[in-house]
């Protein structure tokens, strides 16, 4: 019966090893969560920020917050922007955190109609540009950043072809740019939706369908997500070059060119991609104090901090968005390689809420099917 014994010994050893490993897992966790040990008490030292996967802040700036206020930030990311918000709506009244960051103007009405946030006028809100304060009367949400969804172009392609890159929505439908554009599914991707809203803002509710018919005849390609459009189909991106991509126009962000520079080795003197500044739709991202937050005081301090200069200046190179607070400096990389978008299109959140589904549906049957 030595066999059985060996098995038993091996099994026990394996189980012990596994438990030890598991132990590492849990001890790591408790170490990371030492700050959260006090969550239950009233004078909690931890404030929990719920956000989407794109949330990033440098370690230094989060430490700075702790130094200033005594609160430690715990970040909880849950899916893309839409999914993250919907999870908050489902857990309304018993939220997982204190502050939610990442609801944008295309989804704002859904959040407000569901009564997700407790009003709070953050300290320093007076320093925030007036045109991004879409809830200025009630202060249920605080604007934190803006970003522009625009068509990017592959500079090399247009230089080689001696063709001027497109500038406006109209240009994209011209024969010179046939079969060059790739965009995202407006039903599943937020830049895709932004681009669709940009065309609605430009051509009106009566005209946008005609415009998309023209785009379709002009060979626009639709893929599901930004990752594919940008990394697989767009010839100007690093990933696209490796994938031998053949579309020199893509719907992305005005901040994409600086990113191409920052993450290239060696860093080039000019960005490989440019922005068609007449095709931009402005996204504004907001944060708010969650209704039912356990640590309301900490949440308020965090909101103050989010629109403070330190966080605002840290944001561009972490999330590639622009600050909203007056006087917050934008890094050189942005001014040097990024585009200034003077007049981005936009649509009021209420109008979006009312029509989003119908616009997306008619867009789908027109372009995708």
């Amino acid at each position, binding site marked *: 019966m030595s*066999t*059985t014994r060996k*098995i038993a010994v091996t099994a026990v050893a394996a*189980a012990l090893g*596994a438990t030890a*490993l*598991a132990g590492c*897992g849990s001890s*790591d*966790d408790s170490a*990371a969560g030492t700050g959260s040990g006090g969550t239950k008490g009233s004078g909690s030292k931890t404030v929990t920020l719920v956000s989407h*996967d*794109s949330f*990033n802040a440098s*370690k230094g700036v989060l430490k700075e917050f702790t130094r200033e206020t005594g609160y430690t930030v715990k*970040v*909880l990311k*849950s*899916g893309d922007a*839409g*999914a993250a918000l*919907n*999870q908050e*709506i*489902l*857990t309304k009244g*018993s939220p*997982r*955190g204190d502050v939610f960051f990442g609801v944008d103007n295309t989804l704002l009405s859904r959040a407000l109609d569901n009564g997700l946030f407790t009003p709070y006028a953050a300290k320093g809100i007076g320093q925030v540009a007036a045109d991004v304060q879409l809830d200025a009367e009630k202060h249920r949400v605080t604007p934190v950043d803006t970003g522009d969804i625009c068509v990017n172009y592959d500079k090399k392609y247009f230089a080689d072809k001696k063709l001027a890159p497109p500038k406006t929505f109209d240009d994209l439908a011209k024969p010179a740019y046939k079969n060059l554009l790739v965009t995202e599914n407006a*039903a*599943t991707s937020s830049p895709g939706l932004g681009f669709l809203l940009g065309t609605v803002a430009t051509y009106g509710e009566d005209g946008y369908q005609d415009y998309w018919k023209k785009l379709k005849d002009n060979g626009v390609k*639709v*893929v599901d*997500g930004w*990752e*594919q459009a*940008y*990394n*697989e189909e767009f010839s100007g*991106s*690093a*990933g696209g070059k*490796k*994938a*031998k*991509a*053949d579309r020199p126009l893509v719907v*992305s962000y005005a901040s994409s060119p600086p*990113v*191409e520079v*920052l*993450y*290239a*080795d*060696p860093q080039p003197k000019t960005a490989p991609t440019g922005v068609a500044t007449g095709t931009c739709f402005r996204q504004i991202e907001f944060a708010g104090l969650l209704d039912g937050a356990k640590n309301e005081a900490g949440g308020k301090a965090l909101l103050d901090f989010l629109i403070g200069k330190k966080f605002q200046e840290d944001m561009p*190179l*972490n999330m590639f968005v622009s600050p909203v607070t007056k006087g917050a400096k934008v890094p050189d990389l942005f001014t040097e390689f990024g585009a200034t978008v003077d007049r981005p299109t936009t649509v009021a959140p209420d109008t979006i809420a009312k029509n989003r*589904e119908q616009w997306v549906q008619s867009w*789908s049957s027109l372009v*995708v099917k």
Partner: protein
Amino acid sequence: MAVPVAFFALFFAYPVVAIVGRGLKDGGVWQFGRIGEVLSRSDIQDVLWFTLWQALASTALTLLIALPGAYVFARFDFPGKQLLRAVVTVPFVLPTVVVGTAFLALLGRGGFLDELWGVRLDTTVWAILLAHGFFNYAVVVRTVGGLWSQLDPRQEEAARVLGAGRFAAWCRVTLPALGPAVAAAALMVFLFTFTSFGVVQILGGPGFSTLEVEIYRQTAQLLALPTAAVLTLVQFVAVGAVLAVHAWTVRRRETALKLVDPAQTARRPRGAGQWALLGGVLLTVLVLILLPLAVLVERSLDVSGGHGFAYYRALGSAEANSGTFLVAPLEAIGNSLRYAVVATLIALVVGGLAAAALTRKAGRLVRGFDALLMLPLGVSAVTVGFGFLITLDKPPLDLRTSWILVPLAQALVGVPFVVRTMLPVLRAVDGRLREAAAVLGASPLRAWREVDLPLVRRALLVAAGFAFAVSLGEFGATVFIARPDNPTLPVAVARLLGRSGELNYGQAMALSTILMLVCAVSLLLLERIRTDRSGEF
């Protein structure tokens, strides 16, 4: 029996019922009329039809490609067999984002086929079918091959001695014995392809949508819970029907099999026919599996101005990623391994107990439970994840922000593998052996230890391997709950792919390559354990 039932009730049934209820109830009253409304929409009908036929086609294609492979791995001995068996399992655990990238490189523009013959398969249904074959090859090879290698070839030989032709002997002897395993494999492939998410999204483009994709869209993006609930029910019914058919086939075919040591059944191929078969299978593996994997490796080394390890070096520091991660991406390996070990343990305990209970009792109720255990494979991660959110939200079970949720969710998907792999072998154990042990005075526990355990040890390890691999590659549920300070490998890959820039893309490829290697090494270790022991009985 009590443990698996409690586990499933708490971490599966309750959350899923709660989220479906949210969608179908209005003011506390069930609104079953909504089912008809949703199902009569033509866009929904298109989705249903596409889901069904692509799953059938994928299953057929996978069986066609992989059954010869199952035979070759079971019956032939050739150098590098263990390594290859580990390698074919790697795709199974890779995140679909990564596989999509690899397949586009092969089938898309400027890809392999395009350069040779000018054929492009991206955004066609062929790309989806081939990728499904790539993912599920191992399911067939392992489930069918695992049993095949333990069938005594002398039974077939005996039939031939008694005058049966080669084909007749195979049909009468081997095929009936393999039946349940083939059915189990086909069922798994069908389930995976029926609920396919990432593959369809990336390779199919927006023109194609499966039920699972639609549920995700309706729940996570539109918060259209009623529509999502109806679709979830449809998926339930469909999966339930498949499982019922499966249970019926298995019951009709299952007999006590004489299992032998695989080392005795495998031998060197003999004759031109067998060598050609081996060659054909190796070529399939090369083209279908190794080539896409090689593309990933190549891209991870393709730094500007030649090839090198720059992307791998960058993975070691959090600074190079300026904020994408709070820790160096490399630490994701440790996180992934720890989560996977815990998930495997949970899956083995729950699945093992369930399989044991299912072998002993044969009542209608128990058989129903058998089918229920498979349901997590057929329910979308987003449904379970959103269900967790609205049910596990009160102390002591406010697990929504706890690390244990990750292995729990992963184990949910691992348990069916454990049960599926263990059950055919456990049922094939001759009950008379157990009775004999009991007659000789052994307690039930001792009889199990002395009779069942040695026979099922191999299956147990295979099951553990599957559960471990699934946990390593699990993405759908993990991405909802993994915390930013300890991301898993697939989550880290997805995060890197979600940003522009050469370094991020290169690091995503490098990390995928590492994930691939980690999986291959774990699976290879498992193969070693298997053979080290195989000579002992």
